[in-house]
């Protein structure tokens, strides 16, 4: 099975990690962490200087976590919202973070496509949703139309035969590397993340021209910048951000969820580019 981590989890992870890297004096508050009707304003967090507000935040987080558990199988989107709400109250709650990521309502599946002369029936999957990641087998020979009665759902005849097995693996390998790097940043394994980024960078450079790889390059430089900042190498991080600006001059971080240090470095990179012009 080829499971490419979905971009949603990766970026949310990055944002949250970036937020957690922010200095303690600056609450890591997402844009939607505002008080609901009836809740104290501004919405407290568990580290509030006022002990009573901090206590309230802890109890509220506990209550919402229980609510999320109740809703998980019934209204999963509502459960996801509740977990994100818990993170508003307690940004360091690892369980809430894990559950919020696990219950992300947008998922991307990239099943491997297997082209085989004779298809074999796929093993029955007990979890129908997990089957979305199971490799898709296509029974096809280089000089033949699709096979019938091979155990897979039969394909109608008349489909053009493939000239050769086509497996566009390079790009998804790069995506996998990027997802792995993001996961390593998430796990605070910054040096490993930078090594993975380096591999992905080399693979990107090796791809033949003609394809728009801006999104991949942006993702790569942002992961690298986050890891460099976390490792204390501001100059390297600024260089990554300069490359981000070269790819997308209007790029901005979400100021609510990004560490002030990254924001400052992006400003510095932008200023340098302006001066260079």
């Amino acid at each position: 099975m080829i499971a490419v981590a979905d971009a949603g989890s990766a970026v949310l992870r990055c944002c949250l990690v970036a937020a957690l890297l922010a200095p303690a004096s600056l609450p890591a508050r997402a844009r939607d962490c505002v008080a609901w009707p009836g809740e104290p304003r501004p919405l407290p967090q568990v580290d509030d200087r006022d002990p009573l507000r901090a206590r309230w935040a802890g109890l509220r987080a506990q209550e919402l976590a229980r609510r999320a558990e109740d809703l998980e199988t019934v209204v999963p989107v509502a459960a996801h919202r509740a977990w994100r709400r818990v993170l508003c109250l307690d940004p360091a709650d690892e369980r809430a973070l894990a559950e919020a990521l696990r219950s992300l309502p947008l998922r991307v599946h990239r099943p491997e496509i297997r082209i085989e002369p004779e298809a074999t029936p796929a093993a029955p999957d007990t979890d129908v949703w997990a089957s979305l990641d199971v490799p898709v087998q296509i029974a096809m020979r280089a000089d033949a139309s699709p096979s019938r009665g091979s155990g897979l759902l039969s394909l109608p005849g008349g489909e053009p035969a493939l000239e050769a097995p086509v497996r566009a693996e390079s790009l998804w390998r790069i995506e996998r590397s990027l997802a792995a790097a993001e996961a390593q940043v998430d796990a605070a394994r910054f040096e490993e993340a930078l090594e993975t980024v380096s591999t992905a960078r080399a693979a990107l450079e090796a791809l033949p021209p003609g394809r728009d790889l801006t999104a991949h390059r942006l993702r790569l430089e942002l992961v690298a910048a986050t890891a460099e900042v976390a490792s204390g190498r501001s100059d390297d991080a600024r260089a990554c951000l300069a490359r981000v600006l070269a790819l997308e001059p209007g790029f901005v971080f979400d100021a609510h969820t990004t560490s002030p240090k990254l924001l400052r470095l992006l400003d510095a990179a932008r200023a340098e580019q302006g001066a260079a012009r």
Partner: protein
Amino acid sequence: MRALRSGLLAALFATACQAPPPLAPPAEVSIEILPGLATREPIPAPESERVEVLLDVTTSLRAGPAGVTNFLAARTAAARFVHSLPDSTPLRVHALGLTPGRSCESASLLDPRQRAPSHAALAAQVASLVPAGEGSLAVALAELRSVLAEGGDPERSRVVVFSDLGSECGGDLCTAAELLLDAGARIDFVVLGDAATPACFGALVPADRWQHAPVLDPPDYRIVAYDPSPEREPLVLAEGRADGRRQPVPSGPVTIQLGLDPPALIGPLVLSPGTLTRVRVIEFPGLDPPVREWIWATVPLVLGAGVAP
């Protein structure tokens, strides 16, 4: 005797004409509730999630050698998925690219009259789809969102898209996906081929909104003069709503009765003239066990300050 009487009268008159001694400023009290959920809400009844499959079988998907693979893979994967869903799961399959021609058309609903006896039968239809035209995936998703919004409960819907994410007919896939997410639906993109995942997908989460879980309304309170002998009728000094507003109260020992369930009795506490006593109560009746805690703090009143909260 007369002299004495006139002396007393003079003294009384003098006393009466004197300015009264300055009154001590009253004490002030504010009571605020930091609430949790009103009660532990009942869990909604479990219902089968509605599944909406959107299969891209546009002619452009099949273009080129890789396209052939992607098209066959998309169709095979969609058919496999439809086949594996239990028949009890409400399911609709929409196919993009069935309308012949070069213009960009909407998705078509397979088996609109729902005559297929089972999901296996529907899967067989999916497996035999052949590209005939073009369509925009983004537009199809936006249209699907409208259908879900009209049809009931998008929060119990899961949309599964099988596509190579081609954009020959344009449209903003990010906006379309965001609309669906904000409506409450979940989306699974099954991407066949090597198209990059739109970067926006990483930032898309459903908008936070106030959920159907109301917190407690501020209860009423009464401040009564403290009386150690409970048989007497309490003397009510002030009453109001525990919304944090400041309220002048005669100074002295008092108790506060809060209309929570069960009622709370706070005190006795002594209200001193010229001070503000701020009482804050945490109330989580929905937790197991319920939590109720309170603290109060007294600070000098700032002269000239109003009584606004």
